[in-house]
């Protein structure tokens, strides 16, 4: 999907969503911090294939999808991930405008089970705007791996809104969420946030208060079975970002991908080239049989067909190899580490480490280019 001004601007809010909301029974907003799996929840519920990625800031515009449950249709709006609703970045503005507009009957706030404390900040800010909130704790499998236990009943009681736990990657766990959304929309469960924050003189005071409350709630609700629950991740991170190994490991990874792409693409390329040239001979005989004039054969076969065949046989295999490999690296969560490692270099060019990802993507094109030469 291209990022045109139409797909990222605030305009899209009003037009598309409003149009769709007339044909569905309920409108549900899906909010949460960046990289907590909102898009995965969205895809799981709607059966759509919104691009999901393991890096923050992937969704920059509201995506819309529908699903039905018990004869009711639900319009689901995937709001860009934000840490708060108080800042000025475009994503936050889109998110804030949408939640404040009151167009949705219910806002589902997705939290990362492994860092509930930080995620609660946004949840509280949303509950301050609208009482119709449902908390969905995602990534339960990750939390389980890290020995984090969450008491959902207590959580729900403390907040005054329903809380469900899911692992969006495993679709069957989303049933609980659909049921809860249905119950809230039909008035069977009435969310009434218990915790309110007095209007403070400054935002910083409000946020301090929210953070204090989050800490308190988190202490009651989460139990950490392992004291060193993050130990393994930290160790890996330390190696991947160390002075000694950080850069070599990165070069090794990228080099390996590059090499696999260039070398691996040779075989399918040859196969495609062979297939296309066989077809070309067939076309020649066809044109001869039709007594086509020479110039026509020249334009259509020697010109158009041959170039097209060449481009496809050279470009398609490396792309078909590079992008899945890159996705694999992305799923490992390695890309943010590259960004972290290279930030200082990119900073010198007045860019940020995040651009390293775009640069790596560009390798895909380089691989094609190398083969072309």
């Amino acid at each position, binding site marked *: 999907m291209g990022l045109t001004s139409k797909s990222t601007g605030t305009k899209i809010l009003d037009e598309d969503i409003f149009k769709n909301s007339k044909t569905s029974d309920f409108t549900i907003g899906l909010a949460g911090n960046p990289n907590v799996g909102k898009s995965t929840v969205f895809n799981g519920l709607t059966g759509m294939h919104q691009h999901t990625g393991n890096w923050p800031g992937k969704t920059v515009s509201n995506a819309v999808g529908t699903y039905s449950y018990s004869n009711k249709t639900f319009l689901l709006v995937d709001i860009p991930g*934000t*840490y*708060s609703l*108080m*800042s*000025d970045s475009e994503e936050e503005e889109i998110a804030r405008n949408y939640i404040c507009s009151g167009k949705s009957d219910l806002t589902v706030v997705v939290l990362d089970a*492994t*860092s509930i*404390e*930080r995620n609660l*900040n946004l949840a509280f800010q949303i509950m301050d705007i609208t009482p119709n909130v449902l908390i969905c704790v995602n990534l339960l499998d990750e939390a389980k791996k890290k020995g984090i236990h969450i008491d959902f009943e207590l959580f729900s009681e403390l907040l005054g809104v329903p809380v469900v736990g899911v692992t969006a990657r495993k679709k069957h766990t989303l049933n609980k969420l659909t049921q809860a959304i249905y119950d809230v929309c039909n008035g069977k469960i009435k969310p009434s946030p218990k915790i309110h924050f007095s209007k403070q003189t400054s*935002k*910083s005071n409000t*946020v*301090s208060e929210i*953070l204090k409350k*989050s*800490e308190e709630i988190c202490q009651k609700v989460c139990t950490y079975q392992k004291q060193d629950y*993050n130990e393994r991740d*930290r160790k890996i*991170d*330390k190696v991947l*970002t*160390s*002075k000694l190994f*950080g*850069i070599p490991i990165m070069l090794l990874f990228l080099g390996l991908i590059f090499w696999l792409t260039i070398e691996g693409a040779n075989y399918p390329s040859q196969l495609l080239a062979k297939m296309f040239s066989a077809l070309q001979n067939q076309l020649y005989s066809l044109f001869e049989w039709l007594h086509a004039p020479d110039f026509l054969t020249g334009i259509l076969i020697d010109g158009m067909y041959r170039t097209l065949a060449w481009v496809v046989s050279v470009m398609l295999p490396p792309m078909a190899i590079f992008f899945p490999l890159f996705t694999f690296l992305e799923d490992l969560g390695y890309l943010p580490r590259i960004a*972290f*490692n290279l*930030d*200082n*270099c990119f*900073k010198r060019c007045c860019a940020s*480490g995040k651009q390293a990802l775009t640069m790596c993507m560009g390798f895909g094109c380089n691989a094609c280019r190398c083969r072309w030469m």
Partner: protein
Amino acid sequence: MKHSNGIPLCNLELNKKAKVIDLKCSENELRRFLDLGIVKDTILTPIFKSPFGTPTAYEVRKTVLALRKETAEKIIVSEAE
């Protein structure tokens, strides 16, 4: 409570816990800090550095976030137990 002996966060040694005592920054940056959950009294621990020295990863509220040196020097901390 002694406020005078605070040091900028970027000068804090790795794996030393510290508590935020002051944020010396503009309104915009302050908001960014608030989003990330950094306010007065927040506990931060630097856990690892990028190969080029900056940015540094800090553990805050059970998550990890990376701050550049220029950003971290605006956060004044005092070592905490």
